[in-house]
């Protein structure tokens, strides 16, 4: 088994672009003698996972990242709109930062607290650098000068129906308190294209409750075609990275005060989305 596994991994390495492998090697990681970092991140998983992410990134969604240079070195919070029913937007933003940014950068994103209760995903997510989204975890990562990707719309964002596409939901305030506490700059990110990957007519609440999911989208193909129905359409992704925004103030201030600052970020992303949509000629190319 070990030998076959090794051969598969060698094959994966063999088909991967030299340049990409080099980028993965250059990721800033601080690993212990067993090749993992304190949060359980193991770059091996990125190395062997990146060819698959890259195929989706370059061939399927043909992602066009813009303004990657705006992401500053050191601690930073990337704040993005969330869309498309399944979180491919997170995967594409992370891939962009590894394969197209210079120097390549590992993004950390936050997972819900139920993820550690799921077999396999419970260890897979930490190995690829994703951790449970608690305040202490985020703060610790920023203090290590890492980059965090967050979606303040949360699950409300990703489960939007087609009629509400590109209209940002309310933002949670956690990210802004974190930015104030750690002095990390905020880079607004607008993902254009993901909204159309799985157009959902309605989110069928009772059924969502029944299966214990946050949303139950009804799309032209789902649930009619079964699992096949969640296959996203080959839309074109355009990811806009905006200029870093700096905030200061009391991290423990009233919600209204912090909320005003969060709204500035929300307005910026909304504007970037509007501009991005205006410039876009076609959903698919």
């Amino acid at each position, binding site marked *: 088994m070990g030998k076959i596994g090794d051969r598969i991994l060698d094959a994966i390495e063999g088909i991967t672009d030299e340049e990409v492998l080099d980028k993965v090697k250059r990721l800033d990681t601080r690993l*212990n*003698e*067993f090749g*993992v970092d*304190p*949060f*359980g991140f193991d770059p091996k998983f990125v190395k062997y996972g990146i060819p698959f992410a890259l195929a989706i990134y370059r061939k399927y969604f043909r992602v066009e990242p813009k303004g990657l240079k705006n992401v500053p070195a050191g601690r930073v919070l990337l704040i993005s709109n969330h869309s498309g029913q399944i979180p491919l937007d997170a995967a594409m933003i992370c891939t962009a930062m590894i394969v197209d940014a210079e120097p390549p950068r590992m993004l950390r994103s936050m997972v819900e*607290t*139920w*993820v*550690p*209760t*799921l*077999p*396999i995903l*419970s*260890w897979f997510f*930490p190995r690829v650098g994703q*951790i*449970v989204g*608690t*305040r*202490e*975890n985020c703060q*610790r990562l920023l203090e290590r000068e890492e980059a965090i990707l967050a979606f303040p719309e949360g699950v409300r964002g990703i489960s939007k129906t087609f009629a509400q596409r590109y209209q940002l939901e309310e933002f949670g305030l956690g990210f802004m308190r974190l930015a104030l506490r750690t002095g990390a700059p905020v880079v607004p990110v607008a993902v254009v294209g993901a909204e159309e990957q799985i157009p959902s007519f309605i989110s069928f609440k009772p059924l969502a409750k029944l299966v214990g999911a946050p949303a139950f989208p009804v799309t032209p193909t789902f649930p009619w075609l079964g699992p096949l129905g969640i296959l996203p359409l080959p839309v074109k992704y355009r990811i806009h990275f905006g200029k870093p925004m700096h905030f200061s103030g009391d991290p423990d201030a009233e919600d209204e005060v912090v909320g005003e600052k969060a709204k500035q970020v929300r307005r910026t992303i909304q504007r970037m989305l509007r501009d991005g949509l205006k410039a876009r000629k076609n959903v698919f190319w």
Partner: protein
Amino acid sequence: MSSGRSRKKAEKPIAIAGISGNLGRLLTRTLHAEYPIIGIDQRPFEGKPKDVTHYQVDARRRKAENIFRRRNIRALVHLGLVHRPTPGRPVYREWNVLGTVKLLEYCQRYAVSKVVLISTAYVYGPGPSNSNFLSEDTPLLGAEDYPEMRALIEWDMFAQSFFWKYPEIETVILRPVHVVGPNVRSAPANYMRLRRPPMLLGFDPMIQLLHENDLIQAIMLSLEPGMRGVFNIVGPGEVPISTVIKELGKTPVPIPHPLAKPLAKRLWRWGLSKFPPGELPHLQFQCMVDGTRAKEVLGFRPRYNLKRTIRSVLG
């Protein structure tokens, strides 16, 4: 090296409660050249060094109080609920907490100036919503789903209230992560010694290990005058459980997690397994702690690296 009294730093002795355990014997070997040592334990002390006085008493009895009255003790090191759950011995936990209550009462009554209590990082409890590195101020939820752990929490909380109640006594509470080594027979060390350690299918949480000698080092630092407070004691780093098992050259047995709890409970009750069911959540969720405070205040740095710490259970 020998037991010449004149060499010893202080004439006032250090009492070690739980001295007959593996950790107690190890601590005695390190300490007795420098300090006069008194042992308090119900169990006999096998291989006791000549210069150590051992009192084989129950801490709740009058005899134990007499030791404190007569011996002018400088410090008490309590090795705590020696964390070694044993099937069919519920009383064990009961007297462990009660015994500690009594011992601390004597410390207060007979002006012992330093108390070092060895708790465990288990008190925070493994859980899916844990932050990766829990600080000393995290609520102690270790017994929420596992009543087997209740005595542990009770013990730690009692130690904390003692710390607050008697500011004139320098109380140190250490919460070490999984302690392993050639001598200790702790649950994690026993787990690592199993021929085929069980793992939960689809789960591979990160863990922290501490070498027994590093724990001894932390106890020595805590005995320094002026040290007081609650400290997480963290070893050389963090690794997935699977890595530990692989490093030991073993193959784990994966068990689907819905089956694990009933299975572990039955096997334990029938005496067929050496794996305490209360430890099961440690195979599923993480319970890692932040050791910054011990590093900054106690000046604690683990001396054993990860590889040596892991391999130490084989020795």
